[in-house]
């Protein structure tokens, strides 16, 4: 863990901190997202694990509603561990896609787009994955009521 963090800290100064790392994963600017993933892939983190979007509604009058996208990669060797970092974007922003790097990102990002509503820029086929095509809204929004009716079926 420390080894790769040290490498990342020299490659991306100011983003990763090797001395006292953020246990939740470093916050990476959206424009360096793909570069970090590519660097990690070259350094042994070849297994794509998951991408998680979450919605942070605006708090108070000042705040901006944001999406946070966490990405997890893993090195498939002995002493394997999962490495994760996060990207925060405003709700109308886009996270660059990892599809060219990891084929598995295709479906994962579609799922997060479907459920959370994060848009992934450059995704070749950003459709809904889980819900029907004509669904309105993104269920994992914090302001989406869980009991939302969907006539005629419920």
């Amino acid at each position, binding site marked *: 863990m420390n080894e790769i963090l040290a490498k990342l800290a020299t490659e991306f100064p100011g983003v990763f901190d090797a001395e006292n790392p*953020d*246990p*939740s*994963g470093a916050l990476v600017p959206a424009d360096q997202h793909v570069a970090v993933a590519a660097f990690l892939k070259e350094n042994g983190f*070849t*297994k*794509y*694990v*998951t991408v*998680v979007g*979450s919605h942070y509604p605006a708090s108070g009058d000042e705040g901006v509603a944001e999406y946070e996208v*966490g990405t*997890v990669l*893993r090195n*498939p*060797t*002995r*002493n*394997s*561990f*999962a490495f*994760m970092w*996060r990207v925060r974007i405003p709700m109308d922003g886009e996270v660059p896609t990892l599809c060219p*790097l*990891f*084929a*598995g990102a*295709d*479906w*994962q990002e579609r*799922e997060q787009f479907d*459920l959370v509503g994060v848009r992934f820029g450059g995704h*070749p*086929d950003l459709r*809904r*994955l*889980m*819900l*029907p095509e004509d669904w309105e809204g993104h*269920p*994992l929004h914090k302001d*989406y009521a*869980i009991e939302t009716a969907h006539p005629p079926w419920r």
Partner: protein
Amino acid sequence: MEVRVPTRPNPHLDIDAYDADADLMALNMGPQHPSTHGVMRIKLFLDGEVIVKAVPYPGYLHRGVEKLCEKLTFVQIIPIVDKHDYVAPMTNEQAIAVAFERTLGIEVPRRARYLRTILAELTRIGSHLLWLGTFTLDIGGTIGGGASVMMYTFREREKILDCFENLTGSRFHYNTHTVGGNRHEIPDGWVDQVKAITALMKIRVPEYEELCTGNEIFNLRTQGVGVVDADLALELGLCGPNLRGSGVDHDLRRDQPFHAYDEIEVNVAVAQGGDCHARYQVRIAELYESIRIIESIIDKIPDGPLSSQRPVKSHLGVKIKTGCHYHSIETPRGELGTYIIGGGDNKSASPYRLKIRPPSLHSMSALPYLLVGHTVSDVVAILGSLDPIMGEVDR
């Protein structure tokens, strides 16, 4: 039979441009189809019987559990995740329990860790048995040799379910794991029951092998079909037997030990080739390995408490630390991870966001790459060999 050179097909093939004359036949498999292992729909574009493009549509079992989990506490979440991978519910509980324990820094007593290891391995046997049954069912037909193998594997799986029922009182959805330990004390005679199962399985598994690889048609149907190379497998995030079938020596039981796996030796089964037959070989080898692991520790279950936490009705008092946490264990299908974002502003005992990282969804996302160039008959073989569980894919 020579192995087809895996060239990576384009899953986003523009079918209108490819097929300007509209000669291709679009065939919908599913969502209700005998071989889609639940409710899965695959749209196949066929040139004759050869697949040009395959578009899977999951989501027919999307039950919105992640939304539900944001409103529940730990105690309430654990029985719910039982229903995801309904072939191996035990490891599902373990995954979420381990994730919470690691997030909260709760120590699990050694006795509970050993018990969990045994339960996980028994679940692996049961899950692989069911997989073997349904896989041969796909290849051999519901009225045919496959059905016979399925009946045999279900016969043995019943014994394992009896064993679980003896321990937890439930056949299917156990709710036996809690944060910090296990709920149910080992009953009298349970250890002997487990020993009887392993002794029986040591006789039965060679019989299954004889029924499968002893049959030339089985080999013909599986060898060289659905090849996924190691690079693609890793990129797609395949895990478990599907990844090891592609020749990647990676198993979380050994590489990132949980439960009691740091105290016992795990031999990881790896097969080369990446086709359906390799995945079959890995699973059969894992059956032997699980039997061996259970036999090696069944007599060594240490004494002591089963849980480090006081039994409480609700963990409402326990707050998850703020921040993101990702923890995963190896289930029969591979890496089952849980990504937890701790309760917003430390006010809630429920997670702010909880994402299950299901191994089956990644297996499913391999389908557009694997199916192209094969025939309709191979679809069921490939789908069966990937061992997807739709409850886990859709959640």
